């Protein structure tokens, strides 16, 4: 390995190293604070090394990994989100019995897997990154093992995710059998040249699509989402909703850029149907829920539908629109699930809608931040969510994709209804909420993280230009 390759890989190496250090430290001294400190130090070191790696980028490290500006940008996003989840997890697990150090170790491992995913250009590395992420997530989802729902969610996720990975693997095996390579670039070129069995290749691509669609929880592969989101500990839910989907979106974006927009119309129609179904199913089922985590789970299905619209209707704008929308989505999801974990009490999580009744009168600061996050999810002006949706609509109008745009508009209205339902219950007079539902003590680190996120969202909603310039240089530089 040359020096440049080593420098380019250093962000991933440092995160992997941090996982080992946390694990070793836990065998000497078990401490929630120490583990958090080491984890944050690891993330900070990786983030600093991104600047170091940016000087040598783009570097192809073996055929497996390409560190270019797109990868660096998404690595930064993934590491920042991972660090925020660690901060939220600290307060959440502090309140609960049981070991805490492993949470950070698994979190670092899962983030490393997501990091490999965003930088990969080869299906073998994609598989390793995906499994590193997913296997860590099985353990994280079932982390509170005294809670039967957490175990159930872990098992369900394990079974369904393994099935979807098997589909992906089988698809890749068929593609490899037909094309003789597993590198993204070469595969796209070979498929373009033709001269192979069309049905086999198309079937194989569909199998790979099932694997990717499952991770993104697009309809009809969304069934796992509400159960896993409800059962998993709230900080882990935040991680599943953000990092795992964000990393997969990066893979999709890389493939999209390689294909260069030359996607057949039939595929586009299929994707449009999936996007429209995801939006409607997500939003309509969210209306029926009384559990806040389930509401947010269905809303995340709808949001991935919007994201897919950005891919389909984006045209030349697509990479920018997708990335901006994803950042807005990740920040708000982190914020909303983070809020659930911050205000959860010792005995159980604050997940029922009635746990939020009168929250504004008890904890005005948290309620205000939560309301701002929900407004951003709904896409109200002055928030990042609005700019994301605006980007989407502008790109769609450019392409004249009216059916998709109509669905986005109808669904935004549907979404507003259930987001406002949560907000309204926060401002309602306090009913006799079950004791222990909401914490009395304040998790300082978690609340500070959420305040920073809320400021970020509003900052991005009012002054989006800085981030847009950054995104442009990242996605158009490849």
């Amino acid at each position, binding site marked *: 390995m040359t020096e440049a390759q080593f420098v380019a890989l250093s962000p991933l190496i440092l995160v992997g190293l941090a996982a080992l250090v946390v694990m070793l430290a836990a065998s000497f001294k078990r401490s929630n604070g120490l583990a958090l400190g080491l984890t944050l130090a690891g993330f900070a070191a990786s983030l600093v090394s991104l600047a170091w790696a940016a000087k040598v980028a783009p570097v192809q490290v073996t055929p497996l990994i390409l560190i270019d500006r797109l990868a660096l940008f998404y690595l930064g996003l993934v590491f920042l989100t991972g660090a925020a989840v660690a901060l939220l997890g600290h307060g959440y697990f502090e309140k609960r019995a049981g070991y805490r150090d492993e949470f950070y170790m698994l979190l670092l491992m899962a983030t490393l897997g997501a990091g490999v995913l965003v930088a990969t250009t080869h299906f073998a590395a994609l*598989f390793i990154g995906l499994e590193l992420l997913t*296997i860590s997530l099985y353990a994280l989802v079932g982390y509170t093992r005294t809670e*039967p729902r957490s*175990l159930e969610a*872990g098992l369900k996720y394990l*079974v369904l995710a393994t099935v979807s990975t098997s589909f992906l693997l089988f698809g890749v*095996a*068929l593609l490899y059998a037909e094309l*003789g390579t597993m590198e993204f670039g070469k595969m796209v070129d070979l498929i373009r040249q033709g001269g192979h069995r069309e049905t086999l290749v198309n079937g194989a691509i569909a199998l790979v699509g099932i694997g990717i669609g499952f991770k993104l929880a697009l309809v009809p592969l969304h069934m796992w989402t509400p159960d896993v989101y409800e059962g998993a500990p709230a900080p882990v839910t935040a991680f599943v909703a953000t990092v795992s989907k964000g990393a997969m979106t990066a893979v999709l974006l890389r493939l999209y850029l390689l294909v260069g927009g030359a996607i057949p119309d039939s595929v586009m129609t299929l994707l449009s149907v999936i996007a429209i179904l995801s939006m409607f199913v997500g939003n309509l089922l969210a209306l029926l829920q009384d559990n806040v985590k389930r509401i947010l789970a269905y809303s995340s299905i709808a949001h991935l539908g919007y994201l897919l619209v950005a891919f389909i209707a984006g045209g030349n704008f697509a990479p920018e629109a997708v990335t901006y929308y994803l950042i807005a989505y990740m920040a708000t999801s982190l914020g909303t699930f983070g809020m659930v974990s911050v205000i959860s009490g010792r005995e159980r999580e604050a997940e029922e809608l009635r746990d939020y009744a009168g929250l504004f009168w008890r904890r005005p600061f948290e309620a205000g931040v939560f309301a701002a996050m929900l407004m951003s999810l709904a896409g109200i002006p002055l928030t990042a969510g609005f700019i994301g949706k605006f980007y989407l609509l502008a790109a769609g109008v450019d392409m004249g994709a009216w059916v998709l745009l109509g669905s986005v508009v109808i669904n935004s209205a549907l979404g507003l209804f259930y987001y406002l339902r949560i907000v309204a219950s926060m401002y309602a007079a306090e009913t006799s909420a079950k004791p222990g539902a909401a914490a009395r003590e304040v998790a300082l680190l978690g609340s500070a993280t959420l305040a920073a996120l809320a400021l970020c969202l509003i900052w991005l909603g009012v002054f989006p230009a800085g981030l847009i310039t950054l995104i442009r240089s990242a996605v158009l530089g490849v």
Partner: protein
Amino acid sequence: MTSVPMDHGLLLAGLLFAVGLAGVLVRRNILYVLMSLEIMMNSAALAFVVAGARWSQPDGQIVFIFIVTVAAAEVAVGLALVYQMFKRMKTLDADAASLMRG
């Protein structure tokens, strides 16, 4: 020595895949579900070996080793979760694990 045609190998892998998928869908005992998952993963692994043989590249076998390793890690976590579930619910029936609805 005549070698096995590639399509026969892929067909076998496809059949194994279908057997595994059917097992996951039909079986109620969670241990059998885990075994069926193994069959699915390994059928894909077999397909990789067959594909690698067609191109006389080592890549197929490398991915095979990746898959076997990952499947082992997956089962380790899976069995730990099953053990915890058995301790609390005293059953291995997958239908018993359905506290969440909607």
